[in-house]
């Protein structure tokens, strides 16, 4: 169960806030603690994308250095460094496989530090374990095609056009699967949010 450690990591709100302050003070030990808290999660995510342990470790290193160098933009009081770090990790990995595959980067989507408040204010919601469980259940409710397009988008960073080429399906079909998958996820979250 990989979801549990993710939830535990994302739940560390108060500790994260103090950790961010120390990172902003450039305390190297804070980086060590950040790694101890999120290193395995970041590695698992990146490995899922690049499927090479050596490259995954290089990209984990890049991820933590990127966070180390850009942490000044974070609001320590709201401190949700976990989701941000995972976004950085994912983008590092996808950037790598796109470069290795000779594909152009989706620069707009990968500028994860453009709006840090999108992560800092995210915390109260994302840390709800019920919601995480619901998302997982929602993913399992997707059809195989819907789940495939979501995974290709999230773990491989493919555009819809690229997915259509990969899957040998018309672009319109792929877009339909993507929208249907996202709607399912959104609806599941919304319905459960009302019932919770």
């Amino acid at each position, binding site marked *: 169960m990989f979801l549990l450690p993710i939830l535990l990591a994302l739940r560390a709100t108060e500790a994260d806030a103090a950790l961010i302050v120390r990172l902003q003070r450039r305390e190297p030990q804070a980086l060590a603690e950040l790694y101890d808290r999120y290193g395995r999660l970041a590695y698992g995510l990146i490995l899922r994308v690049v499927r090479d342990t050596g490259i995954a470790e290089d990209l984990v290193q890049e991820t933590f250095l990127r966070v180390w160098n850009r942490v000044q933009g974070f609001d320590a009081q709201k401190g949700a460094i976990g989701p941000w770090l995972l976004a950085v990790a*994912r983008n590092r990995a996808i950037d790598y496989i796109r470069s290795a595959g000779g594909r152009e980067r989706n620069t707009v989507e990968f500028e994860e530090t453009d709006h840090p408040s999108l992560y800092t204010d995210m915390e109260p919601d994302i840390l709800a374990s019920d919601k995480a469980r619901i998302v997982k259940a929602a993913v399992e409710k997707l059809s195989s095609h819907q789940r495939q397009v979501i995974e290709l988008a999230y773990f491989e960073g493919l555009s819809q056009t690229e997915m259509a080429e990969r899957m040998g399906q018309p672009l319109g079909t792929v877009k339909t699967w993507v929208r249907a998958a996202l709607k399912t996820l959104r609806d599941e979250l919304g319905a459960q949010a009302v019932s919770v």
Partner: protein
Amino acid sequence: MNCQELRDHYELYALGLAENPERDEVRAHLDRGCEVCMPAMKRAREMVALLSGTAAPAAPSPKLRRRILASVGVEQRAFGWTPLLAGTTIMFLAAAIYFGGREWDFSREVVRLTAQSRGQMIELTRLNEAFQLMNGAETTVTSFGEKKPVPKGKLYYNPSRGALLIASNLPQAPAGKAYELWYIPKAKGASPARAGMFQSQNDGTVMQVIRGPIDANTTAAIAVTLENEAGVDAPTTTPVIVAPLAPALQ
């Protein structure tokens, strides 16, 4: 585009699937801190972040942590040897102290046992001398002090071996004092000769061997006086024991 028209594009943007012109429109709204688009995008980010939980668990190598910390200037010691060496050193020191203490105890015990053995050996030799003297073919025995309250005992005399004085009721010598043995000559006017010194036991007994031949023709008795513990050349006190030599057996 207005926010309503962008509503279906937040998740696409968060996943990196948004296409122009919607992608640029969403970004423009975010750049100006749009009150509608910002919270919506937060929810979209939240959903995308949770998708990471579908990845299989995996653990990086332990070296990765050191690499990352070293890249920001933190030198981590490679595991193991320093604490291991420290632990081993402490263990050896403890063992050295423990066994050193044991060695010291053993040494003291050996010294004690050696001294005890030496004392027992001396006592055994003394007893052996006494028995040899008592059992000698030429040995005679005389009693003394039988008609007096203190002290009393026997003197075993052997012309070639010497004499054995066994006595009881002998008061313990005061501090600085000791009992001195004397050869009492038969010749009138002759001075007694020194025959050795001893201390009585706590129970008032004594068993003292006088080694060497004693000529009964010139020596009348063995006497004991209380003298300074350094000894004197001539008796200064009245003898507490006077044991005559019995004539040699024919």
